[in-house]
């Protein structure tokens, strides 16, 4: 089961003062591009019932979110991974929507 705490959407803006390195900051546009591709891949994986791919992408997001200074994105990735393991389509769609919101907000904060 996913707890109420886990339901919180990821931060919709750039975190105020994350420990984000110079290298991570320079790579942010590329990072967001990769997350856009993740969102597309998750949607098509969901359409064909490929939960393994969703689990992998969620797992990766869990690691890279924290490494790029987005702990909330890491938490979102973890929820995606769990939902994929549970084959919980509804939860996956919910997290996918949250991911797309995150991309839009962080993307616009960057520009």
């Amino acid at each position, binding site marked *: 089961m996913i707890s109420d705490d886990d339901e919180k959407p990821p931060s919709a803006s750039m975190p105020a003062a994350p420990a984000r*390195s110079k*290298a*991570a900051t320079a*790579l942010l546009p590329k990072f967001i591009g990769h997350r856009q591709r993740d969102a597309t891949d998750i949607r098509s994986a969901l359409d064909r019932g490929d939960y393994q791919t969703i689990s*992998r992408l969620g797992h*990766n997001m869990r*690691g*890279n979110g*924290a490494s790029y200074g987005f702990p909330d994105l890491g938490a979102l990735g973890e929820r995606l991974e769990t939902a994929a393991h549970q084959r919980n389509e509804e939860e996956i769609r919910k997290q996918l929507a949250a991911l797309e919101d995150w991309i839009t907000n962080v993307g616009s904060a960057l520009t």
Partner: protein
Amino acid sequence: MLVVDDDPSMGELLCAELAERGFEASAETEPAKALATVQAERFDAVLTDLHMEGMNGLELCERIVAARPELPVVLLTGHGTLDVAVAALRLRAFDFMTKPPDMDALAASLERAARHGRLADEVRELGEAAPGETEPFEGIIGASPPMRELVQLVGRVAAVDAAVLIRGESGTGKELVARALHERSKRRGAAFVALNCAAIPETMLEAELFGHVKGAFTDARSDRPGLFERARGGTIFLDEIAELHLALQPKLLRALQERAIRPVGSDREVEVDVRLVTATNTDLANAVEKRQFRADLFYRLNVIEIAVPALRERGRDVLLLAQHFIEHYARTMGREVVGLTPACAAKLTTYPWPGNVRELANVIERAVVLTRSTRLTVEDLPESLREHATPSAPPVAVDGEELVPLDEVERRYIRRVMAATGGNKTLAAQILGVDRRTLYRKDWAEKPPDSKRLL
């Protein structure tokens, strides 16, 4: 560095962070491709993610270790579980770190891994060296700058028929240098006679050097020629010349000046034609100052001085020599031993070798007898070497900027390894490169491992 992560964002970030810290790093997202890349190209170390599609990091580590045993692999994972840490270390992963990594600690780990990898490469190349590449000069093995200088000097001095004083610590190979001088001289067709002045009782040394006639003393039942006569036309090597008694020193000086000796009990002189090479492991000039050694004899012996460097001053020569002794003893004992493991090589290169080359030869001979593998391991070395701290051994990542004494670093690192191995002392001792009994003696190793703090 090769970074392997099926998540391109992580691969890019790790490469960029490592580049900022002076590493040249490239990323690979497919483990199978990474395996092919490490076989085709040269890397100092591999940093791989654990959870990847197609082949996980543990499997990749296992396959890299099988294909390129000298290439260190550092594993990176989101899960700092004991199981994974133990599995990684069992597969001979060089290190294991959790995500998100502390980049400075990761860079330090990779730097250590690269150093380890370069040493392993060196060991492998020594084993593969074609005959001739490490060809000894009259038995003298060494490629270090001081040894190259020594060999050049020996080559030049050999042709000159002057007295040579060889200076060097015990076990550095002074007799080998003396033999090289003889073999490279015009006297090589005649005898090379060696004598250790400290090994012969003072009362017998004169007769040993100059010979004696029948009846010269109680046991002198017949005439017997001394070293100077036996070495006629050749070279006499007198080791530990500082031990030559003061009463005998003028007689040796006379033999050198007059090129004639008088056998004990004889009233006639015998002409001699020898080159005298002497050696000492003490400061002979100091002995002259203290009037323990005659100044006139010292200057007569010290026409040319050759200093033989201590093994600890010879850098990587220790590996060349170790390889030479391994091949020699493996051949004479009929054992299948071909070289050293990198950890063993690291021990040999950091030990100060107070007994010099002689000590190294003894250590290798013993190890070749005892080893159960084709490459000598740290376990095959004597306790004094196993327990000697290896400065290049992976130190513990201390917290933040905290500066702690060395014994504290050692204590923390052993705890870290104990924790990572789930308290398995045999495995921990293997990783630490120490004897299991040594680990038992360190009472803090007995404390239960802190399973929360893997790194």
